[in-house]
């Protein structure tokens, strides 16, 4: 009940944010150069055709009318029709969403799998060589451009060695896992570096915390100290960071999808921008905003489930 109330409260707080988000999207899209009518009609269209299309799209209305239309339509779940795809934006988004969601979750999962144990090893060996080696390796990971690494992995692991498929999404869960391994791994290289950095210092900080000293003084086994006291506490800041960096993660996904020919939202976004597909750009930007907000909300919920101090406020 309290959780439900909390969710409701968080959702109400999102309203002003989303109004602002809509304004930003609307303004951005309105300021896009190039004529959407021209994008629809193509270079060879006549001026009269263009005028007709503009009229149909309501582009001749005053800006605030257009915004109001955009707002009311969006609230009703109508994101318009994609110029590029000639279908409802919402349909296109829902068609592509699972792929991107899968890829993102997969990447996060891989990052955690990679970074988690490494962070522990590094933190417990603070200042000694395993720490130095791990930190250096991940530091390099942090500096690697996703598009280049993707390209290299694609060329050598997929095209040359044939360990993985070159592109696509596959059918079914296992196939998704197999098809999306390289893209997810590429994103994870970067994300795991961020997680490692944060988790390592969080663990170190917690290891020095008085309550861990107290736990030691109580004579608890190491396993309990690390698992129950250290990990849980260190996780909180890491989960927060993961939640907050979901935007960056999706940024990585955007590029990765392009390189790996994964038909997800990111690739669609680039295509939409290049094609001046206003409704699609609007819809996608909004989708990204909603996704990120949802992740923020989930992060908060997860956090408050871990941390009782969060539950009160």
């Amino acid at each position, binding site marked *: 009940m309290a959780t439900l109330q909390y969710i409701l409260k968080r959702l109400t707080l999102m309203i002003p944010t*989303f109004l*602002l988000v809509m304004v930003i999207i609307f303004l951005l899209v309105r300021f896009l150069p190039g004529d959407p009518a021209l994008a629809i009609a193509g270079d060879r269209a006549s001026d009269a055709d263009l005028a007709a299309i503009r009229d149909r799209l309501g582009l001749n209305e005053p800006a605030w009318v257009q915004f109001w239309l955009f707002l009311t339509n969006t609230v009703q779940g109508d994101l318009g029709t994609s110029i590029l795809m000639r279908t409802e934006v919402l349909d296109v988004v829902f068609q592509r969403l699972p792929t991107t969601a899968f890829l993102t979750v997969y990447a996060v999962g891989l990052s955690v799998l990679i970074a988690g144990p490494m962070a522990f090893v590094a933190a417990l060996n603070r200042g000694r060589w395993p720490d130095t080696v791990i930190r250096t390796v991940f530091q390099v990971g942090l500096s690697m*451009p996703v598009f280049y690494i993707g390209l290299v992995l694609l060329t050598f692991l997929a095209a040359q060695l044939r360990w993985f498929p070159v592109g696509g999404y596959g059918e079914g869960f296992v196939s998704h896992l197999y098809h999306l391994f390289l893209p997810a791994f590429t994103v994870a290289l970067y994300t795991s570096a961020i997680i490692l950095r944060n988790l390592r210092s969080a663990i170190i900080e917690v290891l020095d915390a008085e309550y861990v000293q107290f736990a030691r003084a109580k004579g608890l086994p190491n396993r309990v100290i690390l698992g129950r006291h250290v990990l849980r506490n260190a996780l909180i800041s890491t989960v927060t960071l993961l939640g907050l960096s979901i935007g960056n*993660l999706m940024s990585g996904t955007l*590029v990765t999808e392009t390189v790996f020919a994964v038909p997800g939202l990111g690739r669609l976004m680039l295509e939409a921008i290049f094609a001046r597909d206003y409704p699609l750009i609007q819809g996608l930007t909004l989708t990204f905003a909603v996704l*990120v907000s949802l992740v923020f909300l989930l992060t908060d919920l997860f956090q408050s489930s871990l941390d009782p101090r969060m539950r009160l406020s």
Partner: protein
Amino acid sequence: MSDTAVSSSAPSRPSRLQLALGKPGFLIGCLIIALSTLLALMPNVFAPYDPNYIDYLAIRQPPSWAHPFGTDSLGRDSFSRVIHAYRVNMQMAILATVFALVIGVVVGALVGYYRGIADMIFGRVVDAIITFPFLVLVIAVVAVLGPGLINMYIAITMVGWVYYARLMRAEIIAQMGNDYSDAGMVMGYSDRRIIFRHLLPNAITPVLIYWMTDMALAILLGSSLGYLGLGAQPPQAEWGVLIAEGRNFITTAWWLSLMPGIAIVLTGLGFSLIGDGLADLLRPRG
């Protein structure tokens, strides 16, 4: 350990410089960035050829003594192009971040200090902007302004300042928890003096550390946009563009994309290492 942490007056602690010299990571970072800066400032000294000179007769030659990184599809010298790209990419690191830094620091300091309605509005703006994936927003802004370096800087600044401002605001508020800001008010100092003379120098450390990381990110982001065709535009030599130009030849002419790839990783690493080192060095003492 509480008891020893509060060690009393220590007449001769090692200076920051001494501390810095004791950190190999930081030193390597400084070395990389110093070299990169040198290359960026005078590429002509180091690059053997005009980076844009087309030689029809020397297309995609493998590395040789004459062309240490080989030549590209237009017979241009890859080595010279990678070197000349230093100018663009280092410029990217600075120009894509420095305005965001300045705007963010000022806005963050002001809203953090005054709070109130401006802070509430700021909070909403931050919420709204961080709700977008960074790249999505930057790409959208680049799309509005048109591709190209200047527009890319503007786009990254328009989005990036928020992160600085947020950090600065939090840090200012944290610093205001220290009595010296109250002491300033009690002393009857003007708000401007308290913000800019007292709070800001103390609050800026994490912002500067973030700046280093952000410069590394700016290079990554800039080259990503270059790769996607939204950043620097060919024939401009820029690492992302160079990789994009070389991506078709990754198996046949690997040197085209490998060298700029290495340059990106190295420079990014340099900034990250400096950032890490700074975080240790600038940690407030006593």
